[in-house]
């Protein structure tokens, strides 16, 4: 009898633990989606301070086959002309692995250079790590989607 009770407690505790884990994973996914949205919003208003807070100092960013550091990225945002580019996020998937989260999705962008508008669609992979009480972006990369 005692063994059965112990087994029941173990099963219930494990189920509760799994349920709590699923809930925690859902919370993390929501937090990461919000951060991805914040990133786009901060960039659209050239808010370097907000980007500085969400980017890890060792951030690696890859676009057009080039490796860009956090410093390079922030300098570029600082010197960018306002309202010359637009990003529209599409649905994304967030996978959580404890204190690490991977966001995969697509976005469309429109930029203007030399008076001409350029349109593109990209697939991205972003890696977020929970550090010092908050989620920080440690790696981000995007590849152009073939038409």
């Amino acid at each position, binding site marked *: 009898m005692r063994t059965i009770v112990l087994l029941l407690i173990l099963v219930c505790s494990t189920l509760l633990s799994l349920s709590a884990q699923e809930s925690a994973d859902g919370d993390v996914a929501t937090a990461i989606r919000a951060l991805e949205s914040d990133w786009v919003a901060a960039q659209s208003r050239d808010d370097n301070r907000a980007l500085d807070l969400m980017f890890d100092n060792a951030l690696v960013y890859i676009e057009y086959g080039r490796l860009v550091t956090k410093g390079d990225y922030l300098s570029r945002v600082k010197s960018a002309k306002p309202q010359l580019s637009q990003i529209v996020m599409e649905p994304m998937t967030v996978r959580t692995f404890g204190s690490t989260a991977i966001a995969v999705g697509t976005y469309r962008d429109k930029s203007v250079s030399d008076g001409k508008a350029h349109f593109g669609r990209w697939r*991205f992979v972003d890696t977020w790590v929970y550090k010092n009480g908050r989620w920080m972006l440690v790696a981000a990369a995007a590849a152009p989607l073939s038409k």
Partner: protein
Amino acid sequence: MVILLACAGTSSGYAGDSESEVAPKILAMEHMWGQAYLNKDPKALERILDDAFVNVDSDGLLETKAEVLAEVRTSSVLQFLTESMVVHLHGNTAIVTGVFLIKGVARGKPYAQRERFVDTWLYKNGQWVSIAGLVTRVEQ
């Protein structure tokens, strides 16, 4: 019982090593990855890619672990060289960036591509596994 319950809620473990200790292990597995394409042998990759692994190729296509393993089996790669690899460690997560040059023959035509990649590795159940990757062509 208490120990069992405690274990049920723990994360997957922590590497506990410094960047200089972790980097050679990760780089060795990156080289193994390239060798898998050369040898059309996905065996080693099966072990180092997490089941939830996702990759974005240079055409922006999303690939699962199973799709990457299938790609390796039918690989047309004849040369695979990696360069400029750097490892950044963030606790039990490691980010690797680098460039590789691949040469091969596809549909009777030779090709050569230089691509930059970023891979995310996670220390899980006592070993490093890759959980995500992205490849994009280096502009000439």
